[in-house]
């Protein structure tokens, strides 16, 4: 499976500021996803980011708050804008397997965000 890395691994931010999270994959993938995991909760899909098209956002998530870039097949960024303490979560980059494992999704190590 592909190796997924995220930067930063964690950050503490002040309310009202923005943070951009980077996701790098060691091979080309078509479908990438961004998830949020709030404390004690399971994973919630924020958006699907396919290269060459606009990201598709899930209900409750909007582009102004969570702008996403997907400039090529190995890289994506998620920005958390105008942060509030409610945005404190783990943010996870994910990709769907290619080739023989097209349905299996793999996850990055996550970015732990704390907003004060």
């Amino acid at each position, binding site marked *: *499976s592909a190796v*997924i890395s995220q930067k930063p691994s964690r950050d503490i931010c002040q309310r009202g500021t923005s943070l951009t999270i980077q996701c790098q994959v060691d091979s080309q993938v078509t479908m990438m*996803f961004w998830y949020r995991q709030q404390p004690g*909760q*399971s*994973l919630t*899909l924020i958006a*699907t980011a396919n290269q060459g098209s606009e990201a598709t956002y*899930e209900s409750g998530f909007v582009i102004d708050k969570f702008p996403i870039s997907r400039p090529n097949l190995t890289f994506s960024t998620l920005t958390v804008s105008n942060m509030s303490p409610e945005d404190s979560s*783990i943010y*996870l980059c994910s990709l769907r397997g290619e080739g023989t*494992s097209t*349905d*299996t*999704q*793999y*996850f*990055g*190590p*996550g970015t*732990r965000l704390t907003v004060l």
Partner: protein
Amino acid sequence: EDQVTQSPEALRLQEGESSSLNCSYTVSGLRGLFWYRQDPGKGPEFLFTLYSAGEEKEKERLKATLTKKESFLHITAPKPEDSATYLCAVLGGSEKLVFGKGTKLTVNP
């Protein structure tokens, strides 16, 4: 709407005490059922994909099984290093992976 329910929410075992975790699901057009392990503060680690009822997969002390309505993750003779949260997810016709809330497993030495 696809749904996944995991039980129990938390499970405490003694080292060597075998048990099972349950994942009940409803999905339109099952493409796969997935089990992940998640350690605190980390991303989910892929364990198994099951595609059809009757399928079984094993990895070390873990064995996953699938029926038309549920999946079980059997843990045989667990060790303290098996302590983690185990997540179940389904992928169906919506193309979106839907997760359960997980079972937090603690194995005491």
